[in-house]
């Protein structure tokens, strides 16, 4: 099997020093980049131990895992269905087989944080942030969805901590924009730092059935640099070659890669099939430079996706697309 796959591989051809061009495998689907960070589903929460005590709200009907900040105290009495497990020499975990919808109180704990999770709970917080690749000037949307099974959880408190790569932190409240849907839009980030920002979400409240809950989660997004911008994207065909050019206005000199993906027009299912791709690397000076790449494409109606990626500091400098002519005029 392994040897068969080895010989049936399609050919990827490095053309010369800084370029490589290849074709997609037959039937391969092309997908545009996702706009938002992948949704994160949380059934866990964090509580700070205060005065050696902590209350943990359980939503009931699920097991519960409680990671303590140290060893469980010798005074701790475990009722039926609860057990203590030593994680290591200094940390214990409490397992509850099936919780009741109530607060569980723990005393005589070491100061620190307790991390608790209800892996089978119906109460979830699904969070995301977008755009995943945030260009300078774009607004950032934080979104959290609270559900108790199929029921929306309304009137909850949802806060987010926005943390930059250089550790500048901003706390903000999310507003309920629809039943169980909470959102905040940020037009100006509290720092210009580029790189991955973290959004930490905290939610608590009560479900429609009056059950107290708490949830924590997180997502990240990339705050891109204003390092370069593509414009004047053109495609021309000569026989079976697609000639792609674009102008790059470079504000920060450095290593960049011009990536081009050619895909088919949408099929009846709305899918695009990957045709060919190419990459061309260059060190670009400040100013305007024409970038070009030839792809082996014989199809007449193509979708073209071009990106300029920074290689000194990872990030997307710019991205443009051109849809086939007949799709541009469809509504």
């Amino acid at each position, binding site marked *: 099997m392994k040897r068969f796959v080895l010989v049936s*591989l399609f050919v990827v051809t490095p053309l010369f020093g800084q370029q490589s061009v*290849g074709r997609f495998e037959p039937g*391969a689907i092309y997908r545009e980049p996702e706009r938002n960070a992948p949704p994160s589903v949380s059934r*866990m929460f964090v509580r700070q131990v205060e005065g050696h005590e902590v209350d943990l709200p359980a939503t009931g009907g699920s097991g519960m895992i409680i990671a303590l900040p140290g060893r469980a105290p010798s005074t701790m009495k475990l009722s039926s269905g609860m057990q203590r497990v030593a994680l290591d020499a*200094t940390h214990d975990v409490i397992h509850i087989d099936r919780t009741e919808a109530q607060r569980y109180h723990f005393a005589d704990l070491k100061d620190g944080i307790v991390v608790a999770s209800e892996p089978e709970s119906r109460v979830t917080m699904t969070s995301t942030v977008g755009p995943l690749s945030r260009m300078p000037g774009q607004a950032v949307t934080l979104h959290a969805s609270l559900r108790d099974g199929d029921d929306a959880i309304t009137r909850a408190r949802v806060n987010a901590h926005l943390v930059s790569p250089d550790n500048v932190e901003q706390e903000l409240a999310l507003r309920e924009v629809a039943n169980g849907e909470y959102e905040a839009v940020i037009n100006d980030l509290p720092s210009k730092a580029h790189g991955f920002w973290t959004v930490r979400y905290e939610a608590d409240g009560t479900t429609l059935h009056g059950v107290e809950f708490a949830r*924590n*989660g997180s*997502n990240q997004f990339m705050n891109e640099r204003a390092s370069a911008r593509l414009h004047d994207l053109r495609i021309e065909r000569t026989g079976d070659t697609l000639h792609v050019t674009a102008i790059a206005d470079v504000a920060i000199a450095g290593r960049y890669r011009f990536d081009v993906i050619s895909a088919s027009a949408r099929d009846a299912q709305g899918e695009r099939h990957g045709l060919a791709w190419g990459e061309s690397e260059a060190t670009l000076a400040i100013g305007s430079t024409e970038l070009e790449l030839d792809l082996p494409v014989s199809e007449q109606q193509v979708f073209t996706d071009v990106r300029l*990626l920074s290689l000194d500091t990872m990030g997307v400098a710019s991205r443009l697309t051109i849809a086939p002519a007949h799709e541009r005029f469809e509504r």
Partner: protein
Amino acid sequence: MRRTAIVLFLLAVAVAAEAKVGVVFIHGKGGTDLANPSVARAYWTEDMIRATTKNYTIPYLICSYDGTQYMWVAGGQVAGQIYNWMNANAVDQIVIETHSFGGIVIRWIMSNPTYDSRYQPIINRIKWVNSIAPPNRGSEAADLAGTLSGSWLTGWLIDLVGQSNDSTRNCSTSSMSYYNQYYLKGTSGRPALPKTVWNIAGTGLWNDFAHSEDYGLATLSGIAGLPGEDDGMVAQYSAQSVGIVWFLTDANHHHNRHNDYRKIGDSLATDF
């Protein structure tokens, strides 16, 4: 003309027959001390290396890199070691064995052949890659490091998930979604990798009760909310989102880089 073609064909067959095959091990993320060759060797354990190399009869290299860095930093360290080793030992074909983040490091190298002049010569000699428990779409356990970042990330969680450092950030589901869409090949909707990846996903948690790592991984799986089956650190869906499924193992993330709970090294040795 015809005779020349036959001679060339026979020559190619002869060269292929004499190809010297070697095996390279690329570990996952961890501490800075993984840049130390003896620490990297201990990561795999001696029995795993012995089994995979058929009692050390296959030429091999244990890569060692700083386990706290981004994939492109790790890729540079790994590429330097592979490049020097394959040239010094005249190894023509390489089977790559990776564990966890090591699978992302080799994807970085294979996805970005022009990034480093050593990448393409290495790619040319790769026969295929066996990728054990790679977080190809990220790991919800790495997301937990983001949720608990700052003063909340303490104790045993750091031991398992790692500090909120560059390699952990590299493995979050958001970061991997970004990298998969722009810098890495091999996931659905993206160009294929130049060489085949065979993935091995872990689906077990409680392997033995002698190792505290097993308790930690089982706890982490429940707290991080890894969806579907997982090995305590990486979910099956993530491991299988690049390449071809070779097999599943019920060895957890601690044991699936060893040849103990399940004889994974013995399976890898069947390539030679």
